[in-house]
């Protein structure tokens, strides 16, 4: 069923995991360098020109390329299966994939050749090769096209099913893609009006403060673009995998709608210490950031309660006894459950960063990569690996190559990431160690840092083992495993309570209006201020 959709999903997800391999393998070298084992001279022989060249590839390939390709592929699959119909315009989806691949290849040339060592935030006036900006822009356009195709498909489904509520999995997927359209307006403006013409020499100068603000307009909702597909799995699929049901299906829908409204108007919490933005607007975004934590709190209760239903159905008793009855021998469940546990801790460290005053202690310290490796690096990426443990066998038509290896991968990721992120958090909070820096070569290091640098290096080494186990299994599954004896279906969790969701949880207009209004209120005056002070005075620098 859905042969074309499955092939599209397979291509998207195959590309995602291919580039993730390069990006992730560069990770451990960074923590080794910090701890005093500098292997970059050796990496130069394979074209990694510096610590920062490796760091840029690590960030761009993991956080931008892997996530975007995985999500577009996953949603093509989930929307088709959840609505129970193929794409309305199949050829348009093929075209979207081609656009994304063309963008990726254009980006890859300067990225791999050290022509765009600007990190994944590409703050001007660091000036990358124009192809880097152009390629990334084309990838984003391709991801928009995927979203449009999914909406066309939903529109056709709605016409045939005017009275039926949109199934939860499809609804979560579509809300994510619509949020992404609104969120990417910022980076699209940054690319089209500043970075691309400036890197081509059509305008002489860039405005770093405006560029940063446009970047973070997209940069924070980008986080929810990564996270919401995980919530689609945790709400819509994981309870089924655990033998449970969705504790409160209407509240799951409510959470997704709140994310549509609240994901975008809070990017200034990345810019609390920027000089060009008035404090009042920073404070407003601080409050809105606390607000967006609310749907994640709803999710925490709802997902855990949904799993508890499964644990109790399997005979679990008492307050915590049900946890031991969950399917810990299923790598897809185990990876996602571990990801959820570490993600909860990452949420707490994120709330710290987002706090108006506490951020002065943690801003741009190692605390931040500690936080984001628990969130995007684990909550998201580790969950995607867990999804891959059923989805890749489904798409490849073969059994998972080795379940034990997959379980070992999950445990090593849990242990490795706990150590690495713990070390990074402490280094940042207690000693103010800067992030994104070749610490091993720095003149200002202190011996007090050593135990935690070593802790994170040990964590990184265990993660390397986990990465190898992951790829052994993926390659084994796609090329060397047995053909499936019975077909795999997308796990779809049933609601626990049969009270249907009220009609206002299946209407786009009020939520979309709320989203647009809040963006205008939270960003309109800031943008007017920045544009009135526009100063295109920064020429570009290639300082790597």
């Amino acid at each position, binding site marked *: 069923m859905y042969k074309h959709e499955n092939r599209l999903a397979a291509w998207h997800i195959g590309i995602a995991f291919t580039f993730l391999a390069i990006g992730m393998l560069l990770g451990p070298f960074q923590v080794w360098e910090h701890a005093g084992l500098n292997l970059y001279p050796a990496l130069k022989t394979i074209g990694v020109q510096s610590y920062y060249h490796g760091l840029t590839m690590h960030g761009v390939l993991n956080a931008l390329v892997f996530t975007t390709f995985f999500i577009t592929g996953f949603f093509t699959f989930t929307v088709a299966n959840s609505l129970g119909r193929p794409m309305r315009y199949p050829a348009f989806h093929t075209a979207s994939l081609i656009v994304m691949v063309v963008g990726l290849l254009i980006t890859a040339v300067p990225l791999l050749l050290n022509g765009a060592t600007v990190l994944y935030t590409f703050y001007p006036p660091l000036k990358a090769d124009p192809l880097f900006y152009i390629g990334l822009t084309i990838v984003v356009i391709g991801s928009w096209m995927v979203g449009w195709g999914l909406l066309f498909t939903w529109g056709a489904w709605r016409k045939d099913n005017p009275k039926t509520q949109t199934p939860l999995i499809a609804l979560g997927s579509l809300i994510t893609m619509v949020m992404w359209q609104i969120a990417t307006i910022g980076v699209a403006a940054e690319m089209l009006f500043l970075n691309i013409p400036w890197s081509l020499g059509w305008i002489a100068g860039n405005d770093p403060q405006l560029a940063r603000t446009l970047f973070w307009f997209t940069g924070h909702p980008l986080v929810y673009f990564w996270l919401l597909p995980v919530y689609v799995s945790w709400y819509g699929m994981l309870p089924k995998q655990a033998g449970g049901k969705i504790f409160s299906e*209407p509240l799951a829908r409510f959470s997704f709608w709140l994310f549509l409204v609240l994901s975008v108007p809070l990017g200034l919490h990345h810019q609390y210490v*920027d000089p060009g933005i008035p*404090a009042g607007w920073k404070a407003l975004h601080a409050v809105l950031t606390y607000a967006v934590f609310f749907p994640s709190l709803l999710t925490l209760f709802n997902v855990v309660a949904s799993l508890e239903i499964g644990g109790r159905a399997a005979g679990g008793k008492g307050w915590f006894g049900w946890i031991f009855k969950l399917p810990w021998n299923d790598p897809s469940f185990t990876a996602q459950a571990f990801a959820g546990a570490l993600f909860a801790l990452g949420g707490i460290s994120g709330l710290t960063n987002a706090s108006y005053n506490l951020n002065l202690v943690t801003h741009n310290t190692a605390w931040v990569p500690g936080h984001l490796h628990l969130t995007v690096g684990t909550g998201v990426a580790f969950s995607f690996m867990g999804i891959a443990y059923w989805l890749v066998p489904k798409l490849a038509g073969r059994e998972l190559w080795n379940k034990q290896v997959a379980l070992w991968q999950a445990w090593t990721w849990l242990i490795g990431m706990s150590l690495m992120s713990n070390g990074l958090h402490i280094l940042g909070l207690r000693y103010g160690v800067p992030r994104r820096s070749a610490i091993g070569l720095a003149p200002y290091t202190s011996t007090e840092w050593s135990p935690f640098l070593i802790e994170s290096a040990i964590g990184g080494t265990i993660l390397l083992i986990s990465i190898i186990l992951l790829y052994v299994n993926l390659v084994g599954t796609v090329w060397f495993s047995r053909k499936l004896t019975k077909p795999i279906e997308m796990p779809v969790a049933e609601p626990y309570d049969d009270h249907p969701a009220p009609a206002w949880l299946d209407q786009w207009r009020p939520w979309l209006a709320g989203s647009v209004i809040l963006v205008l209120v939270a960003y309109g005056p800031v943008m007017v201020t920045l544009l009135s*002070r526009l100063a295109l005075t920064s020429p570009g*620098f290639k300082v790597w």
Partner: protein
Amino acid sequence: MIHVHPVERAWIVMGAVMLAVFAAAVFTSSLMGGIALPVPEAQVDPRLVATPGATSFGEPGLRELAPGQYEARILAQTWAFTPKEIRIKAGSKVTFYFASKDVQHGVHVDATNINLMILPGQVSKLTATFDEPGTYNFICHEYCGVGHQTMFGQVIVEP
């Protein structure tokens, strides 16, 4: 309305109250503790900022405004702060002004609430009082090119 289980309702109320309390704590402590974030101070042309006479960063350095009160104008560029060392007496209050003549930089002065971005085109300003004698590093914390890890300076507080 949505049908909500009583335990879940309790969780929702607790969560909302917790977030409200956190937000109140953050803003109350910021106001009462006099915690300041950088706000728009001035715009400068990064192409001219380091030219003597063109801006106050043309001759960067420490100036004493009154006994125990200083202003420090520090120019950031790849990969150095100028001046890279300032000396003051314990108990001094220093207002820092930073500007960049090239790419983005950032700075965190050890053991203080001075943590700010230095963006070309903008002046960043924050103030701190140094009561304890010692050496306080200020380290560039925004990636600024291959020599980024070497960029730092020191505030030396003498007894």
